[in-house]
């Protein structure tokens, strides 16, 4: 091994890290120079980016293509609504508690769906989400089919006035997306990241070299579930109302997220960011076209999968050999 040097960061990645810090500071000060509409949009972009990074970690790195992530969005949201209304827990504490609660539910669930391989795994996770949605609609303390609301008494715990609440929730959305991105980034830089790369390249080979593939995948699945649950709780803290259809919506919390990741570039950390920006750009432009907009998104996803599997970012990265996040290891003599 002597004579080799392992580099984790590149010149571009250090520049990009600085750029990210600047963007983050600019967004954190948005309340002082932007309107409430801007704050709402940025906050929505933030939680969608978090969902996209999480789905990307699962599908793009761990090879666990789930169509059932809405299960965790819904479970996290229900955890928030139940804890605040039944036990009077502070809503921000409840958002944090949503993570361990969803993780605890995801563990036995994983043991069942991990018995399915590949695409059947995808549909299996979807069945679980449907089961939760139908199950919740039978439980009266959870509002049954008609859902629950966060009362003003609960919301004033965050801040007494509306403007103060909007400010706190806005900053919370930035904090959550930063936290989620940091978790994903650090996981990929850790030995789990190496194990995942090995599994992606050859599951059999990495198994025989001592990588515990089952355990690695299980860890990623549960961590993703916990983070998704926390994001879900935050989303519905903003929305104030929760119903089984809204909380467990496959279209809102999974379909859209998959499009973002696929268009931006699956299996890279840059891809979900690009995909999220493209998605919101298209949405602002084509909002009046309703169904045609979804048809276009579907068609774009199909074309990308057929012609440029690594997405928009993949094209850029290959053309310019550009990698902005330092999750790789560079070997030099």
């Amino acid at each position, binding site marked *: 091994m002597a004579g080799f040097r392992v580099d984790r960061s590149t010149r571009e990645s250090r520049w990009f890290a600085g750029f990210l810090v600047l963007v983050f500071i600019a967004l954190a000060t948005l309340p002082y120079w932007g309107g409430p509409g801007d704050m709402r949009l940025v906050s929505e972009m933030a939680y969608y980016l978090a969902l996209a990074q999480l789905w990307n970690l699962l599908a793009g790195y761990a090879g666990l293509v789930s*169509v059932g992530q809405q299960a965790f969005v819904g479970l996290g949201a229900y955890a928030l609504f139940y804890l605040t209304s039944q036990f009077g827990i502070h809503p921000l504490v409840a958002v944090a508690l949503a993570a361990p609660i969803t993780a605890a539910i995801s563990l036995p669930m994983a043991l069942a769906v991990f018995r399915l391989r590949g695409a059947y795994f995808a549909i299996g996770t*979807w069945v679980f989400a449907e*089961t939760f949605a139908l199950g919740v609609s039978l439980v009266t303390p959870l509002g049954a089919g008609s859902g629950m609301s966060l009362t003003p008494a609960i919301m004033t715990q965050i801040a007494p006035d509306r403007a103060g609440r909007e400010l706190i929730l806005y900053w919370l959305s930035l904090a959550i997306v930063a936290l989620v991105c940091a978790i994903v980034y650090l996981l990929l830089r850790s030995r789990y990241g190496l194990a995942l790369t090995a599994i992606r390249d050859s599951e059999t080979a990495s198994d025989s070299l001592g990588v515990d593939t089952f355990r690695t995948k299980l860890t990623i699945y549960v961590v993703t579930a916990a983070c998704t649950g926390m994001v879900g709780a935050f989303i519905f803290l903003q929305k104030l109302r929760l119903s089984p259809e809204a909380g467990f919506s496959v279209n809102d919390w999974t379909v859209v997220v998959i499009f973002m990741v696929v268009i931006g570039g699956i299996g890279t950390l840059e891809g979900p960011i690009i995909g999220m920006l493209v998605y919101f750009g298209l949405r602002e432009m084509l909002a009046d076209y309703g169904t*045609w907009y979804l048809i276009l*998104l579907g068609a774009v996803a*199909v074309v990308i999968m057929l012609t440029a599997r690594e997405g928009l970012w993949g094209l850029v990265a290959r053309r310019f050999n550009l990698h902005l996040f330092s999750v790789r290891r560079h070997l030099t003599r």
Partner: protein
Amino acid sequence: MTDWLNILLQGALLGGLYALFAIGLSLSFGIMRLVNIAHGDFIVLSAYIALAFIQATGINALASLAIVVPLMFALGYALQRGLLNFTLSGGLLSPLLVTFGISVIIENVLLQIFGADIRRLHAGAIETDSVAFGGIAVGVYPLLVFAVAVIAIAGLQVLFYRTALGRAFRATSDDAGTAELLGIDNRHLYAMAMAIAMIFTALAGVLMAIRTTFDPAAGPIRLIFAFEAVIIGGLGSLWGMLIGGMVLGIAQAVGAALSPTWQILAGHIAFLIVLVIRPSGLFPHTRD
């Protein structure tokens, strides 16, 4: 007692329809390891094609099969040859996400053309006719659907084990590379597999549309029913699909008897129980 017997019988007959849902999904997986996420949407698309022809010509819903089946056969061939074959080399993600995109496209195109109204097809008196078995009245139509499912699976068995095409399917399923070396054109064979899968999808779509209502968003739950029937029955098992469909149908019928809100949930729970206790299904045949 006859009440419960009745529920079990109705559920078992409903299972025939679910077995028809399952055939298309199972065929494309068995032969080319392709899981078609848009499968449920193709079932609903078949129902809408039938609806369009019925509205244009006034023919009976069952007669519309004469048009819908060949149309879906051609569509299946073209789809596989022109699009899906190009996804098969790219691992798991590519076919999954392409069919996922197709699913969203079909749903929204149907919504654009036909609107969100709930539809149903009418087949005349056969819908309400019934025959008596002991003390239990059984609908002629559910019996007919069940018979179609049994004939369909028997037909597939003949196709797979008695014809040259079936031999080629089995060879490709076992080892696509070797089959190609021995002169099998996989591109054509895969297209034929999808075309044949679409015959059953069309059949399932029209027969479903006479029995229950449908709308453009009705596809995904049909995909889930098909999937549950396949997994309960056991991957790769022909008659397992029928048993899987019947288990699912009976679970749903029992659930519905308890409370209408329990119908679908009971089916999911039955599936999850099988998944936990017997992950390879009741009649496992192939390993994936």
